[in-house]
């Protein structure tokens, strides 16, 4: 399929494909096995300017949009979603600053993120506040010229690896969801530390850790936007980032199809390559068709968002929901095509199947995506009455 990408977008795709083939594929199994953060690869991505992809040019980035991000993330994910998660999480941490930060915050932090000098992370989830983000307990109190943060965040991608954290905390409990605010916390801030590092089913090259705030003092100019804007910041951030998760799913599923199709062409049973059995060929046909549908959706939504559209919540949720469910299905089928081989660690598809699961869970479970889409439908059809 030709998606009529610009010369620049093709350049991004080819460069990411080169890095994926040369740097990521040879080490992905080892990174997964050892649950090791891919520092060398992150450095190569920084040298390739990829951390600047969506950062505006005035802050040292390339000024790309959602589609450029999706193209890059898709290619990296084709080789390893653990690596692409580590990479993409830096943009997730950057979005609150990019969307709502002051000029000072942007020039100070975005420039460091663009060069890859610092990675970023986004911290919302807590032990008792997952899908119900309004239940967060972490507090920020303004005392003199400082905010003092207390509480802990759970399952934070890049926790401990990032230098810059966008953190959502409650500033006024009496106001409910309007009482949350977003802050920038730096790795060296007093009272800030990382706790438990999680052991995961998949995306094991990425780091997932607990963040602990114990009388963590930050200057008051670290507030993003204004007090009470925390959930707006979080929701707008997710609106922007969700197609990127869809792109991860498309890349992952494509990687699984690559493996399954190549295997089916060479694996012989009953004296012929198994791709010549209709049962197998039809599985591959369905996989390929679903991947193309997922890619078409992600690219269309990304282009729509880049056009400056405001009503993006529904389509952004769709661009996460469909491809991630698709990737779970396709990677499962890939394991099936490889049969016993697919179940063994000698082949990459079992890792792909493990990696796929989290895509249906993080950045809003797929049930939450359906809620978002359902609410938007309700509003849309309500307006017609």
């Amino acid at each position, binding site marked *: 399929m030709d998606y009529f990408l610009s010369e620049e977008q093709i*350049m991004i795709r080819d*460069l990411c494909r*080169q890095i994926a083939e040369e740097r990521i594929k040879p080490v992905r199994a080892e990174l997964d096995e050892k649950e090791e953060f891919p520092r060398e690869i992150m450095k*190569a991505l920084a*040298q*390739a*300017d990829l951390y*600047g992809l969506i950062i505006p040019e005035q802050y040292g980035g*390339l000024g790309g949009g959602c589609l450029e991000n999706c193209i890059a993330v898709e290619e990296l994910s084709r080789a390893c979603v653990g690596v692409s998660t580590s990479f993409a999480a830096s943009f997730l941490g950057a979005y609150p600053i990019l969307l709502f930060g002051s000029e000072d915050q942007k020039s100070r932090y975005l420039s460091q993120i663009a060069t890859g000098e610092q990675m970023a992370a986004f911290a919302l989830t807590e032990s008792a506040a997952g899908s119900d983000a309004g239940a967060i307990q972490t507090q920020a109190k303004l005392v003199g010229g400082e905010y003092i943060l207390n509480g802990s965040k759970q399952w934070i991608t890049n926790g401990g690896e990032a230098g810059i954290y966008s953190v959502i905390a409650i500033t006024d409990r009496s106001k409910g969801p309007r009482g949350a605010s977003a802050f920038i916390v730096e790795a060296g801030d007093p009272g800030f530390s990382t706790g438990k590092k999680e052991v995961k089913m998949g995306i094991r090259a990425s780091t997932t850790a607990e963040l602990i705030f114990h009388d963590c003092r930050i200057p008051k100019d670290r507030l993003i936007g204004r007090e009470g804007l925390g959930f707006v910041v979080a929701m707008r951030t997710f609106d922007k980032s969700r197609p990127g998760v869809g792109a991860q799913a498309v890349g992952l599923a494509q990687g699984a199809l690559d493996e399954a199709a190549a295997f089916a062409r060479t694996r012989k049973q009953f004296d012929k390559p198994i791709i010549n059995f209709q049962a197998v060929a039809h599985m591959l046909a369905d996989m390929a068709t679903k991947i193309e549908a997922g890619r078409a959706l992600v690219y269309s939504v990304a282009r729509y968002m880049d056009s400056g559209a405001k009503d993006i919540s529904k389509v952004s949720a769709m661009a996460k929901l469909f491809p991630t469910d698709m990737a779970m299905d396709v990677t499962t089928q890939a394991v099936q095509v490889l049969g016993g081989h697919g179940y063994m660690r000698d082949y990459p598809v079992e890792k792909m199947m493990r990696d796929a699961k989290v895509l249906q869970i993080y950045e809003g479970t797929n049930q939450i995506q359906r809620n978002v889409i359902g609410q938007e439908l309700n509003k849309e059809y309500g307006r017609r009455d």
Partner: protein
Amino acid sequence: MKIIVCLKQVPDTAHVKLDPVTHTLKREGVAAIINPFDLFALEAALRLREQVGGAIHVLSMGPPQAAEAIKEAIGYGVDEGLLLSDRAFAGADTWATTAALAAGVRRMGGADLIICGKQAVDGDTAQVGPGLAMRLGLPQVAFVKGWREVAAGHLVVERQMDDGVDVVRLPLPGLITVVREVGEPRPPSLKGKMRAKKYEVPMAGAAVLGLTEAQVGLAGSFTQVVEVFAPQASGQRQMIEAPAQEAGRLVVDYLVRDQIIRLGS
């Protein structure tokens, strides 16, 4: 620090074959790439620039299409390039090549450090780096695998030898040739590639460089390649039938006898 990296565009040797009739390299349909060892030279230059700042220029000699190699280097974040291109340069051996490259270095205003790959994968002579240093009257260290010290007036480098590593102090300006251990080449950068797309590679011919036709190309060469041929495959084979350990030892004996490998002391 101003660094000049010398690059050669070569056929992608992973895919090159000899024409069995003419014994020449079959270049049709074979992609041209930057000599892989020169990518190590480029990586060394990029690391030095990160460490002490400065500028990197790349220099190449070749047909007009070798400008692609310079553009590719721009994609890695190199500052400027120069391609020496002239019909008169054709057929140059390493002697005539260094004459042109030395003139190119002078035209670029010289450098604190010149870095070359240890050899090109098509000619495999490993002479151009040292020859260029001789032409320019510069001190040189070949087979450099890294450096311990970078100062304004000198470099302390590690030279890879068969039996160990020499640590050598190289006064600057000087020239090094590098081996693969100097560091894995990084991927190109997006900003670099975008700049490369628009970059117009400056070119210089013999006249501009102040060289006569007698000094360069085939006319300026002391050696001529008379014939290139692939070694005949004899088709002979010998099976070693012995228990694994003993078979291994026998294989080593054969390889040593035929001087394919040498055992360390």
